[in-house]
């Protein structure tokens, strides 16, 4: 059994519409406590190690992609994403990454902007 966390989602529930969420979160808290107790009482292995580097880089790259998308346009956002994400990989080959980013950028442009006509800003300030 694993040491688990309880999910104390005790949000400020409003009456009426709040009835159900309170019910559910109440149940959840109870269960969470049970699981935690179980983890403590029964012998088990520890949770896996957290590897922060890939976690952080992947998430950061996606978030920055989102951030850059509307302000800086698709092209720059793609480059940001690819470069940052590739840093999460242990072998970082600069040339390869840049080539990949360029191919993806061009490909995305063709498929999404030209082909499917999605309304995504391509260059900075084109909105």
């Amino acid at each position, binding site marked *: 059994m694993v040491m688990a966390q309880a999910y104390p989602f005790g949000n400020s529930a409003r009456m009426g519409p709040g009835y159900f969420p309170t019910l*559910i979160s109440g149940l959840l808290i109870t269960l969470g406590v049970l699981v935690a107790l179980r983890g403590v009482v029964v012998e088990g292995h520890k949770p896996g190690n957290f590897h922060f580097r*890939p976690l952080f880089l992947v998430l950061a790259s996606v*978030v920055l992609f*989102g951030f850059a*998308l509307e302000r800086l346009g698709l092209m720059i956002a793609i480059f940001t994403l690819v470069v940052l994400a*590739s840093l999460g990989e242990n072998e970082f080959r600069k040339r*390869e990454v840049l080539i990949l980013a360029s191919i*993806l950028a061009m490909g995305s442009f063709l498929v999404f902007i030209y082909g499917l006509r999605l309304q995504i800003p391509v260059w900075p300030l084109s909105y």
Partner: protein
Amino acid sequence: MDLLNNIGLGLGVALTPINLAYCFIGVLVGTLVGVLPGLGPLATMAMLLPLTFNLAPVTALIMLAGIYYGAQYGGSTTAILVNLPGESSSVVTCLDGYQMARQGRAGAALAVAALGSFFAGTFATMVIAGFAPPLAEVALKFGPAAYFSLMVLGLVSAVILAAGSLLKAFSMILLGILLGLVGTDVNSGMARFTFNISALSDGIGFVIVAMGVFGFTEVIVNLELKAKREILTKKVKNLWLTKSEFKAAAPAVLRGTLLGCMLGILPGGGALLSSFAAYTLEKKVSKNYAQFGRGAIEGVAAPESANNAGAQTSFIPLLTLGIPSNPVMALMIGAMMIHNIQPGPQIVINQPELFWGMIASMWVGNLMLVIFNLPLIGIWVKLLSVPYRLLFPSILLFCGIGIYSLSYNTFDIYIAALFGLLGYIFVKLECEPAPLMLGFILGPMLEENLRRALLLSRGDPTIFVTNPISAGMLIVAAILLGIVIVPVVRKKREDVFVE
């Protein structure tokens, strides 16, 4: 006799060169769209709607329908190959399909998905042809009380969905329900848990959560396990099903199809619910119980057939009653309106060529899809051997664009990233995401119908047992719950005895 005449009429319409051509375009676009994570058939159909203005009504509808069920086929491809549900209904396929891919049996998984879907599509088409009006009547009998009980049944079966600890599965379901409650409450109009962000007022999108928990998390986890990963993808066995796999999968396909047909008719049901239900049914029924979650071929065959069957039968309320059972159908109604067709009970009588033509072309479309997809399996599998360091940024990118294209809101991308983080935590804690997703979908419907049923009965809770359908569902749910809990309790007792 009449039925055969009608089918003949339908085929006559469906097999004209122009309709064939547009059917092909539709399924082709649909498959591509299904493969791309995020971008769904709804958005694509909306985008291509203007193109249909100058087409004959039947042709337009055939193309749009093709996009819809084509997307179901495409979605399974990414689900199997990279654990990314390209379509919301492919989430379940990820569970065993991806495991199969990791064991080198991606070809078999893709094959069974395609074949199962074809069988389901054919069967569903026949069902529509023969039984559409009576089935529609059945759908109407489902009032809020019945829906509520159906949801309860669904949630109980969600517990079965989990491969691990029962208690944790239950917690995940509850968590899923809570997350699903974010948004505007139907019965009072109030916004809950939205922290005043207007993007949240419609709730968190299912696709967004799925992207985060399945897609992003998987990428992160894979980056950690670098060494192990290389070994797994090297062993690609043959691209086809072995005889034993075929035998195992066949009954699964049948069960999935039947379930999908039944659930697809219900407004609000459709492909998504059917795939989850089929998976749990299969898991309970199969002798291969332990393999589920680790690459059981039935775990791919059942949901894939179910979601295709469900997608096709969800046309029934549309074609017979003029009521859309999901947003995609609502778009079809819009398309019909543009062509001055009134969807509803009159269509069968007033415009039989339209009705039967569409039905026949659904079968034709399924055929095209199978012919088209099977050879592609080889190409897809080759894709797996691309070095991961090149693959994963592409995955992230397509997810990102796909999510953005849903509502053109970068906020959604942030939410998906948040769920990526949550997904990672879940993996570390050995909690499974599948029950979470099911709770996420079913929870809000559960609550909505509960409150609505009580509103209609003016607070009388006996409505859930006096309504026959509702009572039936609850009984089955109770039995299922019993089946699940009793062994666990018994085992505990044994443990106690041993000590």
